[in-house]
């Protein structure tokens, strides 16, 4: 399947400082892709390069088959963008702000569209209030409506859930998911709040200091640690010390530690060695009661990648 957003060795440096470092992205049509990383990781810079608002230092970008460097207007015609800390013209109403965006996009007949977008983001009632009176969350939602005015095939959302209340976050995420599933919009979501967005992302890239350190579905990422091992919990019957010895005698297993229940052991397994390990246990006569693969949430992984980064920093 053709990627809607593709970058190869995309690099942006400011003087000595490399903000985005040889980034390879492939985002498929219709998926929700999460670009997750701490503040200052280079997420916004990447987005602005995709929109043609910042010139890359090196590398290639393609957005819907167009190069944003040479065709920024065409790209911006098809890509809706919700900036981080989005702002509106305060004296103008929400509706007037959207009208202005519609005119900038060369639309002529936009009143119905704006009405339906305001309803979609739950601002039907507040549409005629000045945007200056909106709460942070309302502005964020108006920002989504604003990004949708042009009828985009790609939606880029920069920190869409920051600074809004938990209920608002849930609504926002539902909205994003609905847009992707019902409208077929490709969504690129940049956020530092993993636990909030991991649920809606089809795939994520963990982005630290300008580099993607891991990429895949949340499930894939959660199941594999930095050495490519998986964590598995074994519940074994019989004598605990014997079963532990059985487990440790297998070459595919390392780092065995007691699990939550008596007779259960947590161990690291090389990726793909689960079946041989279980059959090895059985052949040693162990009483295998249960095998459970431990998935971590992204938060844990995320923190782990941070730690690696910090260690590397310390050794440099």
């Amino acid at each position: 399947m053709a990627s809607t957003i593709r970058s190869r060795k995309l690099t942006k440096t400011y003087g000595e400082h490399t903000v985005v470092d040889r980034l390879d992205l492939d985002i498929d049509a219709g998926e929700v892709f999460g670009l997750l990383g701490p503040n200052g990781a280079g997420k916004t810079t990447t987005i602005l390069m995709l929109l043609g608002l910042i010139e890359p230092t090196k590398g290639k970008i393609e957005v819907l088959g167009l190069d944003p460097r040479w065709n920024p207007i065409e790209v911006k015609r098809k890509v809706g963008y919700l900036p981080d800390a989005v702002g509106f013209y305060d004296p103008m109403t929400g509706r007037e702000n959207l009208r202005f965006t519609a005119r900038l996009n060369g639309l002529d007949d936009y009143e119905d569209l704006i009405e339906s977008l305001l309803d979609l983001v739950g601002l039907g009632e507040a549409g005629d209030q000045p945007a200056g009176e909106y709460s942070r969350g309302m502005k964020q939602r108006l920002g989504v409506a604003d990004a949708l005015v042009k009828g985009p095939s790609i939606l880029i959302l920069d920190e869409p859930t920051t600074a809004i209340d938990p209920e608002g976050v849930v609504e926002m995420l539902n909205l994003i998911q609905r847009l992707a599933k019902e409208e077929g919009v490709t969504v690129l979501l940049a956020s530092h709040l993993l636990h909030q967005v991991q649920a809606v992302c089809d795939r994520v890239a963990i982005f630290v200091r300008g580099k993607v350190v891991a990429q895949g579905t949340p499930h894939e990422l959660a199941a594999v640690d930095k050495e490519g091992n998986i964590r598995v919990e074994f519940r074994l019957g019989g004598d605990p010390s014997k079963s532990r010895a059985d487990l440790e005698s297998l070459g595919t297993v390392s780092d065995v530690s007691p699990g939550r229940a008596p007779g259960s052991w947590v161990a690291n397994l090389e990726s793909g060695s689960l079946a041989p390990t279980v059959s090895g246990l059985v052949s040693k006569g162990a009483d295998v009661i249960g095998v459970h693969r431990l998935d971590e949430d992204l938060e844990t992984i995320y923190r782990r990648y941070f730690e690696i980064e910090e260690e590397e920093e310390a050794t440099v």
Partner: protein
Amino acid sequence: MTTDAEVVAEEVPAPESSRVGGWRAVARKEIADHLLSGRFVVLMGVLGIATAAAVFAASGGIRDVAPNAQGITALFLKLFTVTAEPVPFPLIVFVGFLAPLLGIMFGFDAVSGERSQGTLPRLLSQPIHRDEVILGKFVAGLTVVSIMLTALVLFVSGIGILRLGVVPTPTEISRLAVWLVFAIIYVGFWQALATLSSVLAKRASTSAMIPLGIWLVLTLFGSFIFGAIASVLSPRDGSDAAELAYLQTVQNVSQLSPVTLFQQGSSVLLDPEVRTVGLVTVEQVDRAIVSELNLTQSLAVVWPQIAILVALTAVMFAAAYIAFMRDEVRA
């Protein structure tokens, strides 16, 4: 039934037409903003009061001397150039004073305002060229300024006709019209300077201070600065020739300042008796016949002033434009 042309227009989103329309959408919004803004209302109020005071004083002064005066022509234009108690300045000085403020007011937050409101990334992610943002804002500011200055001139003319009972001649009307355009270009210079400052300064308050500072320095210390520059370029040694050369240099240097250009241009355009803006020696005016210039001749006298002012405005706008094109979008 739809024609083929209409069908095509519907199916193909016309990139060219919306490209052309981008700056218009910006200008349209900006004009609406300006007209509804508090600063416009306040400015119009201040302008109205100050103008009314000045024109009443001037027309009063003209009425006092008119019965005794013989052969005063272009009486109507005197409304703009005469000083009379209790208002300490003629209208053209007032406009010369006000024009930079107008330009700065409508330019200083052009980009810095977008930045501080957080609307800049959203605006630039729309399918318009960056230059359309600057152009739209510039056109919008100048449009509003033109409305204000035109209203001011019409207001003065109205009061003048009522108070003096003199109707402007066609020549006077054309002089006023040319002067109005000249004044709008002058405002344009300050607006372009303020726009440049709004691109460079990160905050609206800083961006207002830069052009205001330049304006104050040029207005208050202009003659001192030009004198200092001229005395370096053309040192005085006490001889008449050196003195003349020095004064000529002062004159030339000061013509790089838009403030001087506007003063000189205004005085020639609104007063047919002014025949030169340069140095005049006693020998030159000795036995000269007092006569009036027609508009074409006046224009010939101030052609350099007009050309330099237009050039300065264009350079300033280009600088603002280039600075904005190179500006980082990052907040």
